[in-house]
């Protein structure tokens, strides 16, 4: 059931909570709560989107809220050098690898950044 509720945002919120609180007995409930809240608002907004979506002009650039949301989630999670190195590496690599097909650039950039973060962690 938790797997069904696993979306990008649920992952982000839940993973950051595990990091804050450690893996506790109640961590799963946090995930379930976040997942259910997101799932519900997702369904409702999809319905709203179907009826209103076509009427919102593209020029408003509402798609820009996606990177903004992710920025709001990532930045507070950067608490040490290793985390910052990970974020910078991922950003740079993702820009360089952007042309690769099938979102492979995203995966490569993330893998590279995780390695960089771990390397930085052992140096600290």
């Amino acid at each position: 059931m938790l797997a069904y509720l696993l979306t990008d945002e649920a992952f982000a919120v839940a993973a950051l909570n595990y990091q804050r609180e450690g893996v506790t007995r109640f961590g799963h409930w946090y995930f379930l709560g976040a997942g259910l809240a997101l799932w519900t608002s997702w369904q409702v907004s999809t319905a709203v989107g179907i009826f209103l979506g076509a009427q919102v002009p593209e020029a408003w650039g509402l798609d820009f809220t996606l990177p903004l949301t992710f920025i709001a989630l990532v930045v507070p999670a950067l608490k040490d050098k290793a985390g910052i190195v990970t974020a910078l590496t991922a950003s740079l690599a993702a820009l360089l690898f952007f042309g690769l097909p099938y979102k492979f650039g995203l995966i490569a950039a993330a893998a590279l950044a995780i390695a960089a973060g771990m390397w930085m962690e052992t140096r600290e």
Partner: protein
Amino acid sequence: MNLWIVMLVVGLFTFLTRWSFLALLERIPLPAAFHRALRFVPIAVLSAIIAPEIGYLDNMLFLSPQNPRLLAGIVATLVAYFTKNVVWTIVAGMMFFWVLEFWLSSVAK
């Protein structure tokens, strides 16, 4: 009718790809390095999604002060850093983005 079957099957597949990992990882012990790496996964993946969203426009690299998404992204990063508040970050980023868009388009023409 056919559409419903397709939707159900695709839904089942995306569910299985997510569930299989959770179900397997419960049973298989993982090396310590793997656990160390996990901490960096959300940061790495989200950053790798953000950067091209704000650094590219219409599939072209666009790293310049003329790019409203890039500037608004930087402002949002600062707001996120100082407030640690999701709503403020989105509101400030979006406001700044709209002002820039409006200003840049009126200057350019």
